[in-house]
């Protein structure tokens, strides 16, 4: 739901913005106790904000993800190069690696940003609405790719989304932000517990438990 605090929660988890209250711990360490360099090796992010410049080649942008590991001048070692190439292969951008970012479509740019997060080589990747502004095919393509990355590389990938139907089919665990209570669990458990029923007013949108999708009431 709009305005419930999805992005706020995700950005707080990535320490993009200060927390309002409570405590966030990563491997039993409070998030505030980590300095920027330590955090950069633990969490990488993909945000919705536009890039300050798109005059970077795909490869240059992805290379920036190696910053936590490079020396004071940011020179790339052979290991850095191989990590960058791995990230490019993972999102299948080999053909576009020397293009400038302003030449890319939204879907391609999203892949580049995901590859940058991958090259940062962190156990956790946070993505803020990675599928907004994309068509259905590209939404599914991006989310399937994220699932493959999470399973193949054993990473924790957390993303926010409005596409509950797609998320039900592709996610391992879901957190539904709802008032008064939030629900967390595997999609099928959440369906069994009828957690989706109360999400929207029942006179306009109804959740169909059999198909796992929302239906508009006429």
């Amino acid at each position, binding site marked *: 739901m709009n305005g419930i605090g999805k992005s706020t929660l995700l950005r707080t988890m990535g320490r993009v913005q200060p927390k309002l209250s409570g405590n966030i711990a990563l491997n039993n360490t409070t998030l505030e106790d980590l300095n920027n360099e330590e955090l950069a090796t633990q969490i990488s992010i993909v945000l919705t904000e536009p*890039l*300050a410049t798109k005059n970077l080649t795909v490869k240059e942008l992805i290379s920036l*993800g190696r910053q936590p590991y490079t020396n*004071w001048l940011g020179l790339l070692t052979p290991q850095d190069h191989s990590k960058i190439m791995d990230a490019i292969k993972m999102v299948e951008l080999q053909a576009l690696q020397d293009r400038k970012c302003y030449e890319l479509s939204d879907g391609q740019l999203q892949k580049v940003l995901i590859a940058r997060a991958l090259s940062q080589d962190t156990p956790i990747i946070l993505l803020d609405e990675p599928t907004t502004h994309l068509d259905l095919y590209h939404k599914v393509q991006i989310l399937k790719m994220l699932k493959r990355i999470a399973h193949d590389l054993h990473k924790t990938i957390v993303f926010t989304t409005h596409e509950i139907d797609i998320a039900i089919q592709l996610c391992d665990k879901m957190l539904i932000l709802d008032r008064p209570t939030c629900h967390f669990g595997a999609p099928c458990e959440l369906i069994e517990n009828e957690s989706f029923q109360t999400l929207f007013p029942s006179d306009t949108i109804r959740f169909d438990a059999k198909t796992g999708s929302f239906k508009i009431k006429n």
Partner: protein
Amino acid sequence: MGSVDIPFRATLRHIFLNATSDDSWHYIIWNYRIPKAITAVLVGVSLSLCGLLMQTLFRNPLAGPFVLGISSGASLGAAFLIMGSGIIAGLIGTSFVNDISLAVASSMGSLLVLMAVIAMARHVKDTMALLIIGLMFGSITAALVTVLSYFAKAEELQQYIYWSFGTVGNLNWSQVTLLSFITIIGLVISIFSIKSLNALLLGENYARSMGVKIKKSRYLIIIATGILAGSVTAFAGPIAFVGLAVPHLTRQVFNTTDHKVLVPGVILYGAILLLICDTIAQLPSSTYVLPINAITSVIGAPVVIWLLVRKRKMIF
């Protein structure tokens, strides 16, 4: 006064062999032309580097070395000295206005405004707000200068306008040495900022997530700009345009935004541009010395316009 024709080979002989066939030639080369050339190089390097730092920090193609109010602060310092000293001089009976006191006054002015901006930077988290604050300080100081000029005597006003023309020819060896020293400090800070500048290309949130200490790098970049632009303005006056144009020129030519390329690139182009402009400002065999501030814009602006029109796209 005037122009002296020294043959090229004689010039080389004086520089490298230390020949003393003609004492006045020797004096002209070592005490006028070489310091002037070195000053031009230092001014070009400093201002271009500042422009690059500011454009990346503020992610704004219109930013230049003077967006933080540095040049307006220097102008205020100079204006106070030139136009305000009339009152004090009237009391004591001597005038304080000379090259050194001008340099001191303008550097005090730019330092003061820069300190105010840095103090604000501590409370303002948003870099864009900092940009606006810098521009506001510029407006305030410009207004104060206008008030001062309204009350100033005609010859004081003329002296102030001459200062605002900018010049690279008024420095003696000790001043050139001091300026080189300051420029090198600024240069070293800039080189150490290359990595964070590259991260800032993606915006502050991404840069922080990649381990950049945003606050520290922001201060370093502002301080580097302050000492580079401040010292140049103090010694050579407010030289416009170079800082804005050279980074764009360099980006267009190298077609990259990687600061590992851009930092050496703007240093090279800044030095070349200022040397060319200085040559034109004092054309051989002409007795006139045109204000360098006018030449930099007249030469530089068409080049930037031509580059942008030819590529039909702004690369930033």
